[in-house]
């Protein structure tokens, strides 16, 4: 379906709704802070000082613009559309997450909050938050599910080196959703001096809008780079979807371009039919969690289900509300690939292009590997290479039954 400029501008509406999704479903104690955050954000995003600082940080600290790289060998091996990689893995700290943390930490600074907190799954958002907190001299506490602390040990150590306190959350399923519950509890308690830096386009309004705005730099650059390098817009965009921040960042500036097809790739885990996955858009239904209405994985009684994915960053039972809306109106195709397919994608990109993607990102690669041969050689695909795979060495080595020495 074609989206008009006006529809894009009106999403979200004044109350944070994307169609039937989004909104602000939180306990009363947070409402006032969210209203304040929203009005301050709306003011600051027009403020020349704030914008100048944000843009110079993106350029000189993050290293933007990130390159748009032509994956020549992969393209010719697949024998279809030519494949381009938007290299968010080259951002400082190794993933797109930092685009958003730079923005929110600056907000915290402008609002005079001395302390920031964040939830993290793979640890990338935690590392990005700890990094900007160190740089801005903010106190920092990171909540991480105990299960994720185990599988992303390197990132836990990085956060600690950066001066953050890391709390392993033992409640619930001990993954990202529980880390988010705990961060929300911290925020309710310390709302006067604390800024909650949410790591994806989820949570109560204004977070999904704010995080999307900060991440949209990915799509704006991609658009310009495609026009410069190819003289044309891409035919398809592919991105992995956990909460959905790297995907919306790439997609959003293209929503009005009818010719651009979009694929959001969810974590299919052991396969959708196994029930052991993290693909709410592919196999869930609408409900309310973490402050917004969106597609969720839940049982018939509305209890949130446990999820499974080989990648900690996609292991979340919900998804940003804007994606739920884009699914319902048919603007974006949401698909899934299994753990095994993602691992194949990881190995293929590593072997053919010398680029080792994060396991989250490997889901997008795996889908593009299926998509490209069905397209013509004069067509092009941009994959959001959301992060690098260094943090996943332990996981991959374990699958190969190899103990990585020195730890």
């Amino acid at each position, binding site marked *: 379906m074609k989206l008009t400029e006006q529809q894009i501008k009106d999403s979200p509406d004044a*109350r944070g709704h994307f169609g039937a999704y989004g*909104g*602000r*479903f*939180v*306990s*009363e*104690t947070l*409402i*006032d*802070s969210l209203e304040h955050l929203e009005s301050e954000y709306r003011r600051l995003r027009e403020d020349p000082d704030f914008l100048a600082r944000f843009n110079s940080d993106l350029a000189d600290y993050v290293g933007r613009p990130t390159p748009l790289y032509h994956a020549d060998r992969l393209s010719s091996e697949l024998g279809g559309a030519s494949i381009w990689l938007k290299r968010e893995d080259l951002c400082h700290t190794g993933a797109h997450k930092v685009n958003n943390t730079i923005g929110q930490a600056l907000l915290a600074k402008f609002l005079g909050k001395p302390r920031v907190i964040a939830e993290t799954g793979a640890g990338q958002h935690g590392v990005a938050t700890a990094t900007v907190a160190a740089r801005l001299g903010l106190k920092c506490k990171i909540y991480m599910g105990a299960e994720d602390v185990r599988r992303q040990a390197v990132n836990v150590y990085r956060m600690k080196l950066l001066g953050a306190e890391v709390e392993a959350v033992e*409640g*619930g399923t001990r993954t990202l*959703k*529980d880390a*988010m*519950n705990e961060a*929300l*509890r911290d925020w*309710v*308690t*310390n*709302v*006067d001096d604390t800024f909650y830096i949410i790591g994806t386009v989820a949570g109560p309004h204004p977070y999904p809008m704010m995080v999307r705005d900060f991440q949209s730099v990915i799509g704006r650059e991609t658009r310009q780079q495609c026009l410069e390098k190819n003289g044309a817009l891409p035919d398809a965009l592919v991105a992995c979807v956990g909460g959905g921040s790297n995907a919306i960042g790439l997609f959003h500036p293209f929503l009005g371009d009818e010719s651009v097809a979009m694929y959001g790739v969810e974590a299919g885990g052991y396969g959708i039919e196994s029930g052991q996955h993290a693909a709410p858009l592919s196999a869930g239904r609408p*409900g*309310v*969690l*973490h*402050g917004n209405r969106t597609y*969720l994985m*839940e049982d*018939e*009684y*509305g*209890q*949130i289900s446990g999820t499974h994915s080989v990648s900690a960053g996609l292991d979340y039972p919900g998804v940003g509300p804007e994606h739920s809306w884009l699914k319902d109106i048919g603007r974006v195709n949401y698909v899934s690939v299994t753990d095994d397919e993602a691992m194949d994608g990881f190995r293929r990109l590593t072997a053919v292009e010398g680029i080792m993607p994060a396991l989250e990102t490997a889901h997008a690669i795996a889908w593009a590997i299926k998509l490209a041969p069905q397209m013509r050689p004069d067509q092009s695909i941009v994959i959001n290479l959301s992060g690098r795979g260094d943090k996943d060495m332990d996981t991959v080595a374990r699958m190969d039954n190899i103990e990585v020495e020195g730890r």
Partner: protein
Amino acid sequence: MSRIEQRLTALGEQRRKGLIPYITAGDPNTGETLRIMHSLVASGADLIELGVPFSDPMADGPVIQRACERALANGCTSRDVLEVVRRFRETDTETPVVLMGYLNPVEAMGYEAFAENAAQAGVDGVLMVDLPPEEAGEVVPWFRAQGLDLIFLISPTTSDERIRRMGEHSSGYVYYVSLKGVTGSASIDAGAVEERVAHIRELTELPVGVGFGIRDAETAGAIGRVSDAIIVGSVIVDCIGRHPEGGDSLHQALKSLVKPLRDSLDTP
């Protein structure tokens, strides 16, 4: 007049303060929940807030989180919670019961079906922690149609405009969350509560219940003097958690916890 209104009006006429204990349904099991409800009434409870367990209780501290986990591990569903209320009503038709929980389990059943089933079971009111009045437009008519009171939380930072808006949507009572934090947090400042409750009374005619942070008889008395009712949750849920075997020892322990709260409220 709803059962909640009747009860709170009667208390007001007697110049007495309401005691509202909170427990999580299904912890340690639904049979025990039913017995706990009766014994709370016997110890002086005026109204019962019955928690509907949820997998992600983000406004609750560790005590109620663990209770939710235990209840869900026992397989307690929202249907089972309604069944507990139905059985409670077989012998107690006077004590109001308010379901307290999160929106998603209600949505999963469907607003219309939930409202109908709850009213049939004998529920009097519903409080959904993550449903602010701005998002309640779709829910309110279904609950109204079944004569269920919808109760909202007011926090130390709720604006006057929003308190008025809650007044329009809600009935029964309003629940003043006396501190910034999750359930079971540190104790509260009666002086600050008094000021705030006085202000809330200027904006709504509904009775004001105060909860979060009331852990002992002394605080109960102090808060009771400046409000219409007190809500006590975590200390009771904690007591239940320490008696997983249920039975007599649990009921004795609950009695020695709740009685002093009642006495303190009744001491002018």
